[in-house]
């Protein structure tokens, strides 16, 4: 198996999909000739031509709006929004249109589109290159929401997303593009080439939407995480020596509730972590479900560790980022409760 970075894995997923299905088209800002500001689409235009991979005007509304029209025609557009922070101009098209076309037309028209976007902080991007807006999509019926944490999953999940008959929001933690970042920003970064999850199968391979995976087995407490925070959670378990079970959700909608409930019933404790702001974040949904389904097994309140309820600041990046120290602290509190 070739070792790939997350960028290469994502590119490979699109490449494989475009190769297998003529209806897959890829476009977005700087996506065509240049291959994307993060290089995720590099080479695709050369390989598949300008009709299948092209540059778009700077209109996220137009990108998603035309993708919806293409999907209604029968294509499978996989579009890029340059940063998740810039998805809001397209929000109406996503919420009012993509998410509801199947429903309102009773299945006459469908919307198999994928909207890829880099999320999360850790690159000193300030308030407009750091956001994690997943909760703004998980609340919208009709959308699926996916967040990979490593190259292997990124490829398999993206191919599944492209093949999915419904619209999928595909959030790519940009701090993971080149290596598994665990929040220890002061330590040297390991590249994916040194990590087993950088092993990515060639050709067509899928990871099903809606299935979580256990990244670390443990008996003391369950950590629910996705994206970058999976690595932070693993680091926190390591750092504290607390025998945490770390579940990588991979897909937020549909959610693998069974995996969550089984783990929390086993450990009796739970910490939910995400990088997005706390209030009304997806963590709130997770906490609600855990307390609903595991109430009688819980030995402590479920704790949330998340971004503070402020815009993502520039200089105070590491004060904001919910790193292993904060997760570790939450683990201790939950264990001592």
């Amino acid at each position: 198996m070739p070792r790939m970075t997350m960028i290469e894995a994502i590119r490979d997923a699109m490449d494989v999909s475009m190769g297998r299905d003529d209806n897959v088209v890829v476009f977005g800002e700087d996506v065509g000739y240049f291959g994307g500001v993060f290089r995720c689409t590099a080479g695709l235009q050369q390989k598949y031509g300008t009709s299948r991979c092209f540059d778009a005007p700077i209109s996220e509304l137009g990108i998603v709006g035309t993708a919806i029209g293409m999907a209604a025609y029968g294509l499978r557009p996989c579009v890029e929004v340059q940063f998740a922070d810039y998805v809001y101009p397209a929000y109406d098209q996503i919420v009012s249109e993509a998410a509801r076309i199947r429903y309102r037309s009773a299945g006459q028209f469908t919307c198999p589109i994928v909207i890829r976007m880099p999320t999360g902080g850790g690159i000193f991007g300030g308030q407009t290159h750091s956001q994690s807006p997943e909760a703004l999509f998980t609340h919208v019926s009709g959308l699926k929401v996916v967040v990979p944490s490593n190259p292997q999953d990124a490829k398999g999940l993206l191919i599944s997303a492209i093949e999915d008959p419904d619209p999928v929001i595909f959030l790519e933690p940009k701090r993971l593009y080149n290596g598994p970042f665990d929040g220890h920003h002061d330590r040297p970064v390991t590249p994916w080439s040194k990590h087993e999850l950088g092993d990515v199968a060639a050709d067509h391979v899928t990871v099903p939407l809606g299935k979580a995976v256990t990244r670390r087995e443990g008996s003391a407490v369950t950590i629910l995480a996705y994206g970058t925070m999976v690595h932070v959670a693993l680091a926190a378990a390591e750092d504290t020596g607390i025998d945490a079970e770390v579940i990588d959700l991979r897909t937020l909608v549909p959610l693998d509730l069974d995996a969550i409930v089984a783990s929390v019933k086993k450990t009796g404790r739970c910490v939910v972590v995400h990088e997005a702001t706390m209030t009304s974040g997806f963590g709130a949904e997770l906490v609600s479900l855990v307390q609903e389904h595991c109430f009688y097994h819980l030995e402590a309140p479920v704790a949330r560790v998340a971004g503070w309820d402020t815009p993502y600041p520039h200089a105070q990046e590491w004060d904001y980022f919910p790193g292993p120290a904060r997760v570790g602290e939450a683990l201790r509190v939950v264990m001592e409760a």
Partner: protein
Amino acid sequence: MVETRKGGLFVPEPEVRPGGQPDFSNVKIPRAGTVERPPVDVDPRDIRDMAYSIIRVLNRDGEAVGPWAGTLSDDELLEGLKHMMTLRAFDARMQTAQRQGKTSFYMQHMGEEAVSCAFRRAMEPGDMNFPTYRQAGLLIAGGYPMVDMMNQIYSNEADPLKGRQLPIMYSSKEHGFFSISGNLGTQFVQAVGWAMASAIKSDDRIAAGWIGDGSTAESDFHAALVFASTYRAPVVLNIVNNQWAISTFQGIARGGSGTFAARGLGFGLPSLRVDGNDYLAVHAVGKWAVERARMGLGATLVEYVTYRVGAHSTSDDPSAYRPKTESDNWPLGDPVIRLKNHLITRGAWSEERHKQSEAEVMDSVIVAQKEAEKHGTLHAGGRPSARDMFEGVYAEMPPHLRRQRQQAGV
């Protein structure tokens, strides 16, 4: 010279408000037949002035004149007349049905029937419309069964959309009619995407987008023009300027611009204005634009100048914001009467046959209505199941929706 203004915000106002005398003297109407008909491969830069004129075919004497005349035969025109009459009768019945509580909501087309009915004729099977809520003529003229429209309006057990959608938010893929959104504007850019897809596949099917005068202010309008012009998408972009957006006159959306069609000039698109109450003109212009698109020449922007005679919807009462008699003064007349007179002038029709036809059309609508009502109306008789509410959110029902459906006990 432009007037300077000091002291407060400039807010455009219509010429008249309730209590005033309707006045359309500011609407410049060129004589029928006077606007040129360029070849479809014209350089858009050479026809910029067309965005400020109005293409008209039917003159006051009911004759078809000028270079845009002659696209339709007697039989075709007679059928067109029937379509418009059917739409009008349909509206009347459904408007009443709403008043009777058989459904929650209705929107009529009075005065605008020519736009969708005539445009539909310019399209081919396989083409796709992205309509607003005021183009049911696309369905009627396309042969979509009225009873299915009514089933949708009644949200009854036979509703093809399973009761999920607000009345009149039809959808028929088969009839080239994309699912209507209640959100204004959104579909204009989707039409462009559909057309781009057709180009990507080297297909020759084309799309048509639809938007109201008021809704051109929405962002999707801009995105549609940007993408349509950049990628030369095979799409016809239709603006229906019926002078009103609920209570807001067209001057608020149009701002300082001469016309809505002129919005296309900044994108290098051929931008035409047409008499929207003139069935022949609408058809001729539609055909021209469709042909351009089909030949790979790119998008055309068309403004249909018409007037919304009725209320915005059953929730609206226009007497609060415009003179009651304003529609009588509308200088472009009534599309049904104009086509009727033309056919009579042509010797293909008579007042008598028209009367008779009116009765027949109304009968056919009533027959459809009876049929539909057998399947129920919104609050009585057969209705879609609560189970339908949970279906179709996704292709496959995810676990959380299964749990909710179970909880709902359906």
